[in-house]
């Protein structure tokens, strides 16, 4: 349902992705493994439409959406948790998570149902809800970014290096949350990037390895 088809991307003239093809099937759990600078983030950003593919196609639910503006992604049920979290610091944690759902003009009862679901999956967010996002630790911020992605990611969530920089205890909690997610929302596909292939092995069914902008065999 999410597919990159021979995608090449250059940023400021420098090729970052070369002929990348990958598929995230509906409900699939896919890892994208690579070192720093290999092109993991750019791959997710291309799926999100935040960078435009120079060649190749971005397919979403079987449609060619290569030129679709980025802000239409949430309408297709795609949630995104960027590597550096990118929360809105002056908003509370709850307002951060509500925003993408409110922008979609979802019914208040539906928004309420979704936020309760997020709290059920990530109970620590319930305690953080009234706090300003600017005051969170990096690890807490990653949890909030996951919660925010889940508010609109009814079909897929793209998680960019969620374990990067997490304290071991928090990383464990995050991994447990992903397992709960898998059980609770089996239809939601997950594409997750990481530099350490061992970490994700128990969480995913399929692994792509990216090196210097090219997807290799896994």
């Amino acid at each position, binding site marked *: 349902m999410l597919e990159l088809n021979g995608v090449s991307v250059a940023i400021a003239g420098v090729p970052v992705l070369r002929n990348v093809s990958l598929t995230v099937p509906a409900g699939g759990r896919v890892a994208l493994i690579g070192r720093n600078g290999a092109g993991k983030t750019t791959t997710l950003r291309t799926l*999100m439409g*935040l960078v435009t593919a120079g060649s190749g196609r971005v397919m979403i639910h079987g449609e060619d959406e290569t030129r679709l*503006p*980025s*802000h*239409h*992604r*949430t*309408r297709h049920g795609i949630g*995104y948790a*960027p590597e*550096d979290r*990118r*929360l*809105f*610091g*002056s*908003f509370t944690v709850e*307002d951060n998570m509500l*925003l*993408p759902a*409110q*922008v*979609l003009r979802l019914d208040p009862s539906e928004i309420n149902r979704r936020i309760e679901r997020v709290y059920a999956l990530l109970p620590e967010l319930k305690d953080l809800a009234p706090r300003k996002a600017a005051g969170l630790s990096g690890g807490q911020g990653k949890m909030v970014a996951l919660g*925010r992605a889940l508010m*609109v990611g009814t079909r897929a969530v793209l998680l960019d290096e969620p374990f990067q920089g997490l304290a071991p205890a928090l990383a464990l909690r995050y991994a447990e949350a992903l397992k709960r997610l898998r059980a609770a929302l089996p239809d939601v596909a997950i594409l997750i990037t990481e530099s350490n292939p061992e970490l994700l092995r128990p969480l995913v069914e399929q692994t792509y390895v990216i090196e210097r902008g090219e997807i290799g065999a896994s």
Partner: protein
Amino acid sequence: MAEWFQDNGLLLGLALLDGLSSAGLIFLVAVGLNLVFGVLRIINVAHGSLYAIGAYSAASIGIFLSGRGLPDWASIPTLILSAALVGAILGPIIERLLLRRIYAQEEVVQLLVTFALFMILEDVQKLLWGVQPIHHDTAMRWLGTIDVPFGADFIPFTNYQLFVLPGIAIVTLVGLAWFLRRTLTGRVIVAVTTDREAATAMGIDAAKVFLLTFTFGAMLAALGGALSSPTAALVPGIGAQTIVLSFAVVATAGLGQIEGAALTSLMMGLGRSIAVYFEPELEVVVPYIIMVLVLLVRPQGLFGVIETRRV
């Protein structure tokens, strides 16, 4: 010190009352500039032109309607509606036709383009309204004056300057703060100001927010101009004066702080009128002295937060 206050306390009081109206006007213009810069990240030099065109248009519309029997009481709503009209027409035209093409450009190019627009609009004003002073003060005369006691005497202040201008500024301040924090559209604007790309990934159409914010900012600039029009004769050059002062306010307050812009406008307005009463030759430089002193101590502005630039 105590002796000075004994001698000059009353005069200082008058200066403060005088400063309120100019603080209110400065705030309206500066807060619009601040909002536009926060969202579009463009320093809009032509913001001053929108102020001037707002002033001229309000005067012209007022003169036209008064000649056709508009009752005096309606002149204040007319000022506000004229400003809304100017912003609603010019805002989208400027954003769609000009600014949209330069968002990806370097800051220098953006500055030059809005400066060019400012120069063009200055000449357009001269073409449309000529260079003779234009005066239309029905709104101010209709409200009359209030006598402020000054020792054994009374000094008449216009109710318009003493109450209407600061009142509208306060309503704008409170309304804007409420709008940005409590409404979805307001929060979307804050989100785009904070992080445009993250906002886009959350489903926000940044192009739409740019258009909306710029139009709104244009309306605020025009409102400042329109409300100032009854208080003084309009002459070429008012746009330049205003934009420079608004830049000083935005730089002093720091980016993105509505309340900060209000407090700074108050400081500048009061500082200027105190100068008028006590050291008139300093009037023009007082705002910039305040700005320099603040920036020496806090380069990010009084209320600004230091931003780390993402690479």
